[in-house]
């Protein structure tokens, strides 16, 4: 989904808050452990959890501290998986308990294709209503395959509890000036792109 979590290349942001100021919040280790407990007990998988974060209302996403986003995702998934009702959860706190928005349709992996190192590939011009791990800044763009990974579960299916076929990702190298012509620093941008997101570019 095209939400505000997909930040790469967005403009108007300022200086990075660097280096870190000392920071200790006692609830943060608890939230980290709650996420781990949800994963270990198979209440949800990593992709469902990531997608629940992405489904947060943009205003909430942009203003919530990092671990509040995690907590919101876990709480949302506990409700969606039927471990607690929204009303019961709400009754346990004094004030609002914002959860992420509803989940849309997922999708299955595309038929397998074969890409080799050195192939020119294009990221499909797709607009996906559910979970997708293609950052918007590479959509429709062309790059070169420079590496291949072992197969991973297809996230667009896994995040929706659908049959997640295992497929490799390709380390695709883009030139920054092909991604943002005339408005970027010169660099090579490497992105791990799932096979289903790619199509071959015909050689001239």
């Amino acid at each position, binding site marked *: 989904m095209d939400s505000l979590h997909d930040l790469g290349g967005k403009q108007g*942001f300022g200086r990075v808050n660097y280096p*870190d100021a000392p920071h200790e919040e006692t609830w943060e280790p608890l939230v980290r452990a709650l996420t781990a407990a949800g994963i270990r007990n198979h209440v949800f998988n990593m992709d469902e959890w990531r997608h629940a974060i992405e489904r947060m209302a943009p205003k909430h996403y942009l203003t919530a501290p990092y671990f509040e986003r995690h907590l919101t995702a876990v709480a949302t998934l506990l409700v969606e998986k039927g471990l607690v009702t929204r009303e019961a959860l709400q009754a346990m706190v004094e004030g609002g308990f914002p959860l992420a928005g509803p989940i849309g349709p997922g999708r299955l992996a595309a038929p397998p294709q074969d890409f080799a190192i050195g192939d020119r590939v294009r990221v499909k011009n797709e607009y996906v209503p559910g979970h997708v791990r293609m950052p918007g800044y590479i959509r429709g763009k062309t790059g070169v395959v420079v590496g291949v990974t072992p197969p991973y579960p297809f996230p667009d299916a896994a995040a929706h509890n659908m049959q997640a076929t295992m497929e490799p990702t390709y380390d695709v190298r883009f030139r920054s000036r092909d991604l943002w012509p005339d408005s970027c620093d010169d*660099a090579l941008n490497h992105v791990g792109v799932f096979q289903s997101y790619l199509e071959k570019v015909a050689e001239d």
Partner: protein
Amino acid sequence: MAEKATSTAPIEQRAAAVEMVLRRHDMLPDGFVDDFTEHADDAWVTANGAQMVARAWTDPAFRARMLADGTGAARDMGFEFPEHHRHLVVLENTPDVHNVIVCTLCSCTAYTIIGAAPGWYKDLDYRARVVRQSRTVLGEMGLDLPASTEIRVWDTTADTRYMVLPLQPPATEGWPVDKLAAIVTQDALIGAARLDVTKG
């Protein structure tokens, strides 16, 4: 009828509510939170990646293995990965190439190897800007790279995790491995800094 605006419940209360739900379903045994936190704080630390780097600087065979199979090299040294981190790729800095890591979609990191992601890495400003304005952002963070240095930005969008193999500072040639490991910072393992032992 317009709903009356309620303020959001304190984060501590919301975390406690989720904790209670998991307890009621027997998914949070006594001691789990403390044990998990202690393990994360003790075992998933920057010193792991630093030891790998120091060994790579002093042992060419290990360096070659680490660059070819980062996961295997890390496991050989006794380091662990969560189930979903399936592949660790080590990115070698050279005088002409500088690698820097980001996760634009969330804040994925090889946290068992380089430690929990620092605050600045999770900063929305970093995630938005470093892919597009790499040299500018690194400069703002105090890393001025020569114009001839090629910058490679690695976006952690899949279950591959990355670690930078920094350049060894020339002044540390011949140092023992433990002393070398002690100079390797988390920022250098992400690529936001280069190591320099001559600066105060």
